């Protein structure tokens, strides 16, 4: 008996250990790589604190930490108070009131985050509430409170109803009885509620993602938008977050008595911190502000700081992960001064009258712009748009695997079964259809449903025969690591990858490709046109444009910068010099809603198999 017991104990320990490895491996990996000396997330090259330094110096991350913390604190305090008094009031109410509230609670807890999120997003947009800190806070209170109620209510039910009577009998007013007797008796439930509310709020991504705007981002959103160029800064941030939370939990679980004894002090400290942070945040604003909405990792952050210093203003800088999500944000009422979307999206924004014309007189640096990229169909006279980066779409290939001769296949290379399982497509409906249409010899802006159907077939066949992966911006990291041999990329990303991985090369099929241009535009909501134009001008300054181009890897629209860099920094990087003006190249045009919907449906069908 003794022996079998021992043997089974070993089995228990082994099993538990294996599962704990499963739980903690990702966490440990995250923490270890935060100290990596290089950018890689898969190979440890040495120990350094550089990512922590970068983290501290990154204004947008620190701001997100501030937002996450304060929203979590405020939401916790408010939802704890609201949830606790509700739970107390609930116990003695009529059954109908009780049922109504409990059901509302269950709805919130049981409905998926994403449904709650869109509900709140619709609500805030339809009452025209400006999205930002306030909407995020309200949303967090909304989803935290039910958890507090659920944590506290059972304790209320266990309460002897005579306890409140006893307190009042001894001379306490109902309010004193609440504070001095009932709440102390519920403290276990309330602590549980606080812990739940704080962590739910601090960790939330989905709901915050949908309801925020105007430059207000929490840690999760920053992390989500960082996908483009993952680097160990995220790991450094994660490590700090993980350690903080772990320490908090250990303190609250293992030393509850300490926490309880010093609860008042802790609350006081938290309060002081909160006020301090609020003042700190308050002092930083003031003066002129410029609200910019750009794609993630699409600017050298130092340039923003320098611009702020030079023009004595504050830049509210927010990022999006796709043109479409930017559009949704704008449509649902978020306000910015400058947007930096892509050509086809600019055309749509112009048609839907979101933009205002730019006064080119205020942008003297425009003289340096490459003439070839001006006057493209999306904005023929460049009334609204000032080019920011330009490029094409092409195929990035691993020279050690792909045979040079096969390049002549053009886009069909992506269907060459020699490279089955070696292809990343880009998870973008328009780019994928562009490839399929061009491969079939059609215009990428076709409105002919027959042609579109053929393109759709092309994609389906490709998907089935090639085992393709539809990757997002993570393709960059994957190609740097050389995970697959072929990838559809934007030329700028191609250049960035080629700098990091010398085996890679870039080419544009002769069937034609997408010539794109991301440009700065000014919205109708713009509050400070002068400053907005100053920013546009600043970004075209040759020195600034050069630093930005080096940082991001995309081709500068400023001719002299592009030429210089092609010969220096990006020497031999073919992707940096896209082949503009190739005969079959086109730019994306505006799509009517019906056509757009058709493409969206087909694309969903391609992806969802």
């Amino acid at each position: 008996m003794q022996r079998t017991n021992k043997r089974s104990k070993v089995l228990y320990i082994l099993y538990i250990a294996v599962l704990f490895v499963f739980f903690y491996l990702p966490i440990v990996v995250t923490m270890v790589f935060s100290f990596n000396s290089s950018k890689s997330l898969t190979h440890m090259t040495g120990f350094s604190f550089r990512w922590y330094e970068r983290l501290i110096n990154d204004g947008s991350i620190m701001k997100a930490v501030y937002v996450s913390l304060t929203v979590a604190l405020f939401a916790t305090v408010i939802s704890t108070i609201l949830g606790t008094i509700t739970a107390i009031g609930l116990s003695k109410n009529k059954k109908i009131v009780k049922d109504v509230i409990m059901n509302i609670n269950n709805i919130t807890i049981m409905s998926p985050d994403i449904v709650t999120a869109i509900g709140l997003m619709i609500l805030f947009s339809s009452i025209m509430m400006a999205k930002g800190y306030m909407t995020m806070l309200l949303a967090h209170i909304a989803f935290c409170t039910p958890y507090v109620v659920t944590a506290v209510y059972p304790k209320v039910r266990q309460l002897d109803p005579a306890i409140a009577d006893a307190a009042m009998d001894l001379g306490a007013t109902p309010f004193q009885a609440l504070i001095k007797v009932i709440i102390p008796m519920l403290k276990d439930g309330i602590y549980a509620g606080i812990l739940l509310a704080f962590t739910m709020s601090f960790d939330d991504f989905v709901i915050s993602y949908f309801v925020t705007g105007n430059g207000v981002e929490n840690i999760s959103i920053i992390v989500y938008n960082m996908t483009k160029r993952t680097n160990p800064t995220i790991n450094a941030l994660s490590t700090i977050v993980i350690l903080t939370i772990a320490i908090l939990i250990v303190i609250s679980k293992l030393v509850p008595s300490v926490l309880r004894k010093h609860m008042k002090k802790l609350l006081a400290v938290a309060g002081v911190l909160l006020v301090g942070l609020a003042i700190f945040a308050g002092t930083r604003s003031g003066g002129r502000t410029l609200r910019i909405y750009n794609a993630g990792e699409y600017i050298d952050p130092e340039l923003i700081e320098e611009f702020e210093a030079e023009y004595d203003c504050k830049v509210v800088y927010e990022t999006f992960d796709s043109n479409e999500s930017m559009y949704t944000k704008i449509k649902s009422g978020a306000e910015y001064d400058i947007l930096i979307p892509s050509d086809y999206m600019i055309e749509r924004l112009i048609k839907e009258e979101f933009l205002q014309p730019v006064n080119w007189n205020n942008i003297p640096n425009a003289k340096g712009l490459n003439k070839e990229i001006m006057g493209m169909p999306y904005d023929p006279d460049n009334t609204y748009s000032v080019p920011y980066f330009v490029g094409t779409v092409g195929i990035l290939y691993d020279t050690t695997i792909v045979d040079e001769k096969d390049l002549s296949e053009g886009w069909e290379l992506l269907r060459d079964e020699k490279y089955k399982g070696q292809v990343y497509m880009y998870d973008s409906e328009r780019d994928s259809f562009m490839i399929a249409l061009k491969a079939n010899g059609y215009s990428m802006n076709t409105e002919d449903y027959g042609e579109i159907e053929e393109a759709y077939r092309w994609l389906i066949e490709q998907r089935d025969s090639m085992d393709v992966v539809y990757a997002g911006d993570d393709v960059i990291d994957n190609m740097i690591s050389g995970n697959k041999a072929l990838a559809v990329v934007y030329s700028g990303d191609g250049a960035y990858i080629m700098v990091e991985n010398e085996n890679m090369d870039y080419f544009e099929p002769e069937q034609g490709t997408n010539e794109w241009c991301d440009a700065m535009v000014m919205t109708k909501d713009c509050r400070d046109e002068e400053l907005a134009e100053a920013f546009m001008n600043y970004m075209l300054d040759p020195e600034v444009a050069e630093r930005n181009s080096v940082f991001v890897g995309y081709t500068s629209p400023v001719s002299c910068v592009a030429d210089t860099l092609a010969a220096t920094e990006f020497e031999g990087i073919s992707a940096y010099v896209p082949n503009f003006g190739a005969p079959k190249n086109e730019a994306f045009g505006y799509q009517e809603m019906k056509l757009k919907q058709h493409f969206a449906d087909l694309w969903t069908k391609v992806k969802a198999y």
Partner: protein
Amino acid sequence: MNDALIELRGLSKNYEDQQVLKGIDLTIHRNEFLTLLGPSGCGKTTTLRIIAGFEEPSGGEVLFDGIDISKIPSHKREVNTVFQKYALFPFLNVYDNVAFGLKLKKMDETMIDHKVKHMLSLIGLSDYAKRDVTSLSGGQQQRVAIARALVNEPKVLLLDEPLGALDAKLRKGMQIELKKIQREVGITFIFVTHDQEEALSMSDTVVVMNEGIIQQVGTPEDIYNEPENRFVASFIGESNIIEAVMKQDLLVSFDGYDFPCVDKGFKTNEDVEVVIRPEDIDIVKPEDAKLKGVVKSIIFKGVHHEIVVEAEHRNYLIHTTDYFEPGLVVGLSFGPDDIHVMYRMDWE
């Protein structure tokens, strides 16, 4: 004893469609130990809660020193309560529980300390000041609850079945102690119980209630010896209750015989009920009594035997110290004093 402290006038209370108090009139005096006695659901606890201020009456008034307090919240009344399950604050120690009310009054710290220590010594728990209340026994918790209420020097102490949770032996001890404390502090106690023995042994005045109506108010002796109706008679102690007819003053007729009695003032031939307590019936030889019967059962009860005698019209319950063989034919004898005549009530 004659100066009234609390007067209840026409007090009624409805919960939704249920009427739990149907017009209570009662005067409570200073320094009185008054017990509200009745079965559960009779309205005794509701009456107490109205006096404490936990419930508002649906009708009628509560006069305290002549002033209507029925709208005044409980925390402003000079009344304190000892709860059924004590309702001690589990997160406070014994000392802080007792000091709770005084601290709310913002009394001087040294004063509080003095009063609390005095009260703890009164209840014999001086050594327990720093103890957690949850670590105390039932009896000790009970004392803390009493101390917590009394330290506020209320004019009235309300006790809601405070002994219900204690075991039999502890109960007896606490009954004596409560009575002692009441004499020492010299204030009015209003005590709620469903235990008639407890009520009779502690009270100056007993109020018997049933179905939201006061059945009888009187001293324990009155209540026991002179129950006003069948309910009181049957609720207080054991008794033989017999339907009878009042032939004339001092003469009552039942079971086919006329008996002399001491009651008068009834109408001639009025239907009444008669109570004869079991210990008031003597068992005699059959020929010495009007009523005769056969001993049906005999149970030894410690001090006495409980005998059931089957007579012609009914069974009689008798308590006696003597022993009689079952099956024996006996006579039942009682004097005029032992017969108590009551108005007949219509029980629906």
